[in-house]
């Protein structure tokens, strides 16, 4: 493994800001900027570690959800709504190597919108809500819930 690792570099940069830069800063605004840079670097290090697993889980879930929607069959997904073509695009995007996550999320946006508007069949809505529930849970685990306010 090449050293320093990315995480070790980030930790080092945090110490540089804290020990070398911060004591030299006199303006409270600059001190605040330096402190938030330290905190943000810490967050970046944590995300660097957990992001690959988050991404993999997200893609796996999107693929599984679209596969489940496909299994429901055409009678549950009206042609008029545009959801059939969105589903076809999502399945193709998921089969790419690497998978086209943006295209899958764009297709999911169409399904979630249909659920929000009450235009989705119950079976479709169940699968879409299941995905959203899991997606929200994954984001909560990745980003945490006790965050500074804007």
């Amino acid at each position, binding site marked *: 493994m090449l050293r320093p690792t990315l995480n070790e570099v980030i930790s080092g940069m945090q110490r540089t800001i804290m020990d070398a830069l911060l004591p030299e800063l006199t303006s409270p*605004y600059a001190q605040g900027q*330096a402190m*938030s840079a330290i*905190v*943000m670097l810490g967050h970046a290090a944590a995300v660097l570690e957990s992001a690959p697993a988050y991404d993999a889980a997200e893609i796996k879930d999107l693929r599984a959800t679209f596969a489940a929607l496909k299994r429901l069959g055409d009678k549950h997904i009206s042609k008029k709504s545009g959801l059939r073509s969105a589903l076809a695009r999502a399945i193709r995007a998921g089969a790419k190597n690497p998978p086209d996550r*943006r295209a899958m999320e764009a297709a999911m946006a169409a399904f*979630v919108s249909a659920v929000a508007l009450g235009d989705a069949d119950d079976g479709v809505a169940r699968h879409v809500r299941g995905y959203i*529930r899991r997606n929200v849970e994954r984001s*909560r685990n990745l980003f945490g819930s006790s965050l500074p306010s*804007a």
Partner: protein
Amino acid sequence: MDQHRLTEYFKRRMPHAREHRVVGLKRISGGSSRETYAFDLEWSEGGQTRTRAMIGRRDPTGGLLKTDREREFKVIAAVHRAGLKVPEPLFLELDAGVMDRPFFIMDRAPGRTGMGAFPAAEAESTRAKVADDFLSELARLQSLDYREYGLEILGPPKTPEDPARIQTAHWSEVYERDRMGEHHPILSAAFAWLKANPVVTDRVVIVHGDYRSGNYLYDDNGIIAMLDWEMAHLGDPMEDLGWASMTFWGRDELAGGLMEREAFYRLYEQKTGHRVDRERLFFYRVLGDAKMIAICLTGIRDFVEGRTSDSMMPFLELLIPQLLEDLANQLRLV
């Protein structure tokens, strides 16, 4: 902003005074949509030395919002004239040559502020006074006739349907502009819902646009000044009420960290004499979450593309999951 240029500026703007001196100029946090500076201006006039605490708000190179400082200045001037609790606006400078970018100067009000929900550590009596003032000021704002204060410049809606449609279209465009190719299915669904379910206002009022805890200065006697008027426009009174009572700005089910949500709405009704329209309130709470995400995306994009070096901007990413979860709950997507 630099001290020398600022001093020279005051010499030009206050020719009747002498010995102008800018003291203690420092950039401060807060008011993230513009660079904010605090300083004291000293000058002599009529044989007397005077001092006034001031704030300078300069256009940013990038950041959360793209707003017009002339509009903001005129709104603050209007509501100040109407007697609302706002800092007195003093000078507006649109010539970018004076200080690199346009700016305005206003009075620096005393008091303390929080970042979001009203701080839990404050005394109960202070919380109660701030909560009462918060809704009193909102009621006073919503009772003003914008025409009487020259605020037709904000663009009166042409129909009762316009406020919801215009705000939805604006924030949806911001989302499309600043999402950097990413898709947020819950947010896309929220905008689809907002476009499909526009509400109709019963009257047109001045909307602050960011009326919430964190945007006022207060002390133990209540609110001293409402801040950050850059998103002010004309629209539906439920918009500010919905924004102020969003889960995101609250704490422990307290709207804005100030008061239990239903009591908050009842007090609003007492103060304004208007009932809270639940359908419109719901619409504007959904719009509020969607708008806040769009604002975050603007800040993130400006940081990513180098228009701002504010190290607070990447934190905005951390706020989005909570807002998306709030939207998902409101729209029954989970």
